[in-house]
């Protein structure tokens, strides 16, 4: 933990205080080990310097032409080094800390960054801006992302539960980015009282809290298989077919498109809400 912190602190320190000639020159060959970082790097105009990505990095489309180094968690050190990077950007989590140390030992600069919630996006963007010499672009994006995170949420007009897994039921709690997305889009997460990012709950708790929508991260256009299970039909939203099927690429990761994700979610909630009142239940809508 301390050492992980010190890596970041050192980087920040170097960028903040030392004279320019002492700090590392802007990174030219970057391996990004999280889709959020890849999107941020492209958004600040450093996309052309990304030489490695994870298999999940599918946005922007230009990222797909960059060689993949695997699933990134934990990173395949040899595959990363084979890209001859001068900077590796990792998500700040257990196995990545070990990987970062190994890369540092091989003389490659690394940075571990938290991107768990909206308010992490601004600092993450600034860090990437400093490391790539794109401070100005990073600053303007960071200001926009900071204001997104600091915006007071609109009054909730509807409610939802994010279901991550059906058996046992795992839902999203207050500590998660998805909870923030819902709140900012004007929906109350019925499990907002659970502090953890996600938690196992009893099905009857979902029935009792009676969300208007069941939100699922899914690239499919049909409701998940559990919609047909008898025990799940005790949930009113499931019986009514009130599913929000949210593609993971847009909704499942914090990044420069978070504002877009909030807007899209709000649109879907409103459109489906109107549709559900007047016509047959909608099974979510395909992304535009």
């Amino acid at each position, binding site marked *: 933990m301390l050492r992980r912190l010190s890596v970041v602190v050192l980087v920040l320190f170097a960028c903040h205080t030392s004279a320019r000639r002492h700090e590392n020159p802007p990174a030219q060959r970057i391996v990004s080990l999280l889709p959020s970082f890849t999107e941020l790097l492209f958004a600040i105009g450093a996309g052309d310097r990304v030489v490695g990505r994870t*298999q999940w990095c599918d946005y922007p489309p230009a990222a797909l032409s960059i060689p993949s180094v695997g*699933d990134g968690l934990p990173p395949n050190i040899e595959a990363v080094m084979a890209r001859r990077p001068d900077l590796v950007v990792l998500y700040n989590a257990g196995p990545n800390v070990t990987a970062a140390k190994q890369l540092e030992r091989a003389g490659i600069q690394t940075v571990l960054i938290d991107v768990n919630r909206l308010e992490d996006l601004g600092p993450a963007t600034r860090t990437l801006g400093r490391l790539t010499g794109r401070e100005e672009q990073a600053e303007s994006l960071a200001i926009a992302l900071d204001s997104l995170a600091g915006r007071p949420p609109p009054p909730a007009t509807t409610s939802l539960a994010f279901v*991550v*897994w*059906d*058996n*046992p*039921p*795992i839902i999203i709690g207050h500590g998660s980015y998805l909870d923030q997305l819902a709140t900012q889009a004007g929906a109350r997460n019925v*499990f907002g*009282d*659970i502090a953890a990012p996600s*938690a*196992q*709950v*009893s*099905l*009857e*708790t979902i*029935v*009792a809290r009676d969300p208007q929508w069941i939100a699922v991260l899914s690239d499919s256009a049909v409701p998940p*298989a*559990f919609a*047909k*299970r*008898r*025990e799940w*039909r*005790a949930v009113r939203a499931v019986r009514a077919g009130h599913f929000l099927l949210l593609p993971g690429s847009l909704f499942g990761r914090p990044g420069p498109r978070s504002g877009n994700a909030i807007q899209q979610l709000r649109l879907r909630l409103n459109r489906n809400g109107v549709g559900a009142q007047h016509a047959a239940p909608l099974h979510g809508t395909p992304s535009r």
Partner: protein
Amino acid sequence: MKWTLLAIVAVLAVALSVVLGPAAVPLGELLRSDIVWNLRAPRALLAFLVGGSLGVAGAGLQALVRNPLADPFLLGLSGGAGLGAVIAIALHLSGPWALPIAAFIGALAALGLVYRLGLIGGASLDPRILLLGGVAIGAFAAAITTAIVSLADAAELRNAFLWLWGGLSGASWDSVLLVALYAPIPLVVLLAASRPLDLLALGEESAQYLGADVERVKRRVYLAASLLTAVAVAVSGVIGFVGLVVPHMARLTWGHRHRSLLPAAFLGGGALLAFADTLARTVVAPRELPVGVVTALIGVPVFAFLLKRWTIA
């Protein structure tokens, strides 16, 4: 007297499981509540049936292999079921029952392999090889499962492990009906083998001299106990310690005669699992504990107590 007491405990455990839950349902509305009818009642009954089945399967297997450590999941079935479930997810098999059916088939495949290994020394089923084969097949299936999970792309594969340890969240009247129709067959087969199982405790040769058809009994008991475990894992995942601890508890009071030991293990196992599931649903509400955690937390201290009694005796 002791039967009455056990029956009261069992009924109480199921009743408690219906009355208590994370959602507040007033007592007066208990009979009209959707939550009680569609979720709690089937879940309580399923817990009772699965717990009872595991208790009986454990008692039968412990007699068969003449080893007090035998647990229904020691015979490779959980590994097979897990592999089946992961394959179903990896192949994107859809449908509400895809996972339970795939897990059941996986458990049956493991059962068949272990049974075949048990016959490796000839026509006679060797209980020691059954145990070793079960552990080996289970480990092998688990290795393939892990390989699939780490190589395949689908992020949801990691959730297959959740399902495997999932407990009773999938309970519905469908699954209750399924188990209620299926379980009596292997249960009756095991009960019918009570007398030869008593004899088996004296050793295979002695049992043979006393008139037991040892080969037939061994096969029947193994298959019946495994089929019970396979359906349990298909509807509720792996729930540890019930099949291990309950037979020992039953033996303390009912002795070693299987005609009374097996019914006692059924009622005791059912009561224990219904009670454990009530705790799992309520103690950290609105969150829920995996029921296997609760059975282990209750089971291990009881087991330690039993071990102490044995070593003193």
